[in-house]
């Protein structure tokens, strides 16, 4: 066990932390926004929107993230029509392809989390709120939303940890984030165990921080 190598790899891999965090934050933020749209579509009475969002969630949750990443990066780039269009500004960069794939992926899963959070709220509350003179909007903001958030927090914190792990997959499309750097070190030194330990420690620390932050958030939102 080459401890020196673990030490050196640790700092080399840490250089990719910035890129990893950028990808994670961007994907989570954009994914959250997208997921709200998906939920709205899902709950709407419009057949087309409803079906679209349901199919969207079905396809994204039923296929591996790796397939989605490859599809966006290589699959779309195949068509000259795509390369000449305006979307190419985004799709040209591996970074944005990775963010796009992760955004879409987390949006599908998050929309389900939000949907079940909303579903778990007793329906009668909306009626009683309007009976008390609140507008639907006020009822949503003051009564439903806090409860939905409280319900969803544990599941969403899990989703964040899944995103931290998922960000490692974008190393496959040439992005040099932490896992990409780890792989590069492994293929040069043939020492997978040491590099694994170094990279693993960083990811575990990240997960630990997220878990601790969310414990505090859960406390703040709890009714006890």
């Amino acid at each position, binding site marked *: 066990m080459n401890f020196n190598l673990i030490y050196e790899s640790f700092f080399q891999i840490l250089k990719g932390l910035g890129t990893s965090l950028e990808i994670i934050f961007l994907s989570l933020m954009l994914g959250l926004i997208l997921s709200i749209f998906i939920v709205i579509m899902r709950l709407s009475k419009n057949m087309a929107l409803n079906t679209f969002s349901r199919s969207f969630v079905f396809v994204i949750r039923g296929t591996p993230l790796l397939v989605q990443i490859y599809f966006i990066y290589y699959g779309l780039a195949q068509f000259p029509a795509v390369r000449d269009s305006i979307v190419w500004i985004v799709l040209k960069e591996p970074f944005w392809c990775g963010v796009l794939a992760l955004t879409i992926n987390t949006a599908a899963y998050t929309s389900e989390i939000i949907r079940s959070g909303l579903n778990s709220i007793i329906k009668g509350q909306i009626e009683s709120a309007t009976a008390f003179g609140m507008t639907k909007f006020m009822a949503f903001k003051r009564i439903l939303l806090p409860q939905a958030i409280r319900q969803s927090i544990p599941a969403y914190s899990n989703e964040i940890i899944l995103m931290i792990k998922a960000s490692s997959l974008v190393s496959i499309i040439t992005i040099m984030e932490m*896992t990409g750097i780890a792989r590069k070190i492994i293929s040069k030194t043939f020492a*997978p165990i040491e590099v694994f330990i170094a990279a693993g420690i960083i990811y575990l620390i990240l997960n630990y921080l997220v878990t601790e932050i969310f414990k505090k958030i859960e406390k703040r939102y709890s009714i006890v």
Partner: protein
Amino acid sequence: MELLSFGDTGWGDEMLRACFMTLAVSLCAMAFGLVLAIPFVLMKLSQSWILKTFANFFTTIVRGIPELLIIYLFFFGSSAAIMYVASIFGYDGYIEINAFLVGAFCVGIICAAYSTEVLRGAVKAIPKGQIEASHAFGIRGSRMLFGVMIPQTLRIALPGIGNIWQLVLKDTALISVTGLVEIMRQAHVASGSTRNPFLFLVTAAILYLILTTISNKFFQKAETKYSKGFV
């Protein structure tokens, strides 16, 4: 479209064969993972502080580190890493290196970590009164385990196990980096060879969707069957 045809010039038969490979690896990984989870659940529920910590160590690490890194660990360090893990369990021989086994092993380890949590939650959810009642009736040990606890554990754990199966199916796509010819790898090779990634990635997606949809239906049926008579 003729690229997908069967026979020598088409990739259709390769993709189908890869589909069966995905299924095979998933089944092996799932079986291995579930069996491996059992001792870990027992460790977590035990009174021993050492066993509890070891089991927690295992689940925290495997669930917290990206699957890709776990696969790199065993792929690049094949014999070293697998033999090291095997030696923990007391096996000191040489182990044949085989992409299928390495892949099933990796995904199996990941499956074991998640399954440990699901099974532990399920066991804990069984009302304590059941154990006391069994004792009162004189049912103990393995009879209690197989007759009372396991059927109930299964019912509660089934949705979670269903989720883990979906996870396993999709994680097998990551084994493509080790060269095992499952759906993802075959699609990647075909894309590169024919310069037509779109067609093959869509095909791969459809194959995965078929697998996950059939699995979903299967688990839904199993859940209704196991919940029979339970209010």
